[in-house]
């Protein structure tokens, strides 16, 4: 009996210590943060559109200028539980007290100012690929938006997803600033498109299928997936079977700008908001996204075929 305890106890201590060490939140290198120039709010407005911040952080159903009041409170109902998006307006209830460093650590490392792991419903797994200057510009722009004291409320998650510390292990597996694809002989437009799609645009978060613990399956990058919340599917946007091979680059850029597909259907679901966001993005950037999407490997649909 005594020997059993003397064997098990150190195991628990070592295991617990290893968990604590491996699940610790990480931070952006302070020297890199210090080297960033001052943010440009005007440029930050474009970054705000690229990142689609308003899609989740504007109040549910907000339209027009109300989409700039980042009150939060949108419920994301997922298989892991319900995530309630926070207030990120420049107020006490929002992120008015955050420094640029705080925003950079949240977006690039998924770490909050009080040292907690953020949930990846906030797509920092994509934002991790963003340039620090873009975050600085975004920070400057967010400061110009109207404050609100809306209290968005807590997430509604069951065990074990309610243990934030455990996310540290998940982040070790799925958080990386490296590009998803390596594209040989990429033009400048394709490179820019790659940055926008894989980084701020966070297209893969919905268009790429996930494994059972919520990690993206990058071997089926942008092949379409079951909708991360609610019913239905998110379309395949590669050139593979079921995808958008028949669309020209112009078709893709116009769909992002106007919401109209080449056969004059209109984009719906959460993509309707993406179109509103994309209206604030430079035309050349929409064309760059199109160039990238035409350059990526084709995959068949990343979701199971309908059972009839």
């Amino acid at each position, binding site marked *: 009996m005594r020997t059993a305890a003397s064997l098990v106890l150190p195991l628990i201590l070592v295991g617990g210590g290893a968990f604590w060490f491996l699940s610790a939140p990480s931070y952006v290198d302070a020297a890199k943060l210090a080297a960033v120039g001052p943010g440009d709010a005007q440029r930050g407005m474009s970054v705000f559109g690229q990142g689609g911040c308003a899609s989740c952080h504007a109040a549910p159903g907000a339209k027009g200028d109300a989409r700039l009041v980042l009150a939060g409170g949108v419920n994301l109902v997922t298989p892991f539980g319900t995530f309630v998006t926070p207030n990120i307006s420049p107020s006490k209830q929002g992120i008015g007290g955050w420094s640029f460093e705080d925003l950079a650590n949240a977006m690039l490392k998924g770490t909050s100012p009080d040292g907690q792991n953020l949930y990846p419903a906030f797509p920092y797994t994509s934002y991790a690929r963003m340039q620090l200057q873009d975050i600085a510009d975004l920070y400057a722009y967010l400061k110009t938006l109207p404050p609100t004291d809306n209290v968005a409320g807590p997430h509604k998650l069951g065990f074990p997803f309610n243990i934030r510390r455990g996310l540290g292990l998940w982040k070790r597996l799925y958080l990386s600033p490296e590009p998803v694809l390596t594209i040989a002989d990429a033009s400048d437009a394709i490179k820019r498109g790659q940055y926008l799609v894989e980084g701020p645009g966070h297209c893969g978060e919905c268009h790429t299928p996930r494994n059972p613990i919520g990690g993206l399956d990058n071997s089926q990058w942008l092949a379409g997936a*079951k*909708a991360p919340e*609610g*019913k*239905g*599917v*998110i*379309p395949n946007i590669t050139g593979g079977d079921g995808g958008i091979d028949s669309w020209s680059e112009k078709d893709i850029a*116009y769909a992002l700008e*106007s*919401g*109209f597909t080449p*056969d*004059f*259907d*209109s*984009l*719906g*679901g*959460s993509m*309707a*908001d993406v*179109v*509103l966001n994309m209206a604030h993005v430079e035309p050349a950037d929409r064309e760059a996204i199109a160039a990238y999407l035409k350059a990526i490997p084709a995959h068949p*649909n990343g*979701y*199971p*075929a*309908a059972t009839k």
Partner: protein
Amino acid sequence: MNRLFSLAAAPLFAAAVFASSANADPIKDRQALMKDQGKTLGSITPIIKDEKPFDAELVMAALKHLNEDAQKIDIATLFPDGSDKGGETTAAPKIWEDKAGFEAALTKYKADATAAAAANPKDLESFKVVFNQVTENCGACHKSFRIKKD
């Protein structure tokens, strides 16, 4: 007796077929109506994209046709209860869960389509304003009330 019955029943039977054929398949009917609106917009979008010159006559004909189609969207006949199933449909369950919201979105679209048909734009700039006002309804409605299915 048998013959008498069939003679008497024939008109009734025909009437029944006619009544049901008017609304035999709400899923197909509403899809045809949606497709026609897409086609109509497709005829004038090259002008918006600066691929074709502005043509007031073509634009007016299209906006009028779009308005006619818009007014034909009738919830009772095209989106009756139970028509969320029974065929390949991408109508979202929310249409029936939030009938008031769906009706409000539709009412707005109909009003905007009527205004567009009456606007009579005389140049590209004014046409763009009219076009954007009416087509913002497409995305706004599809955002909540349509889902893509596998």
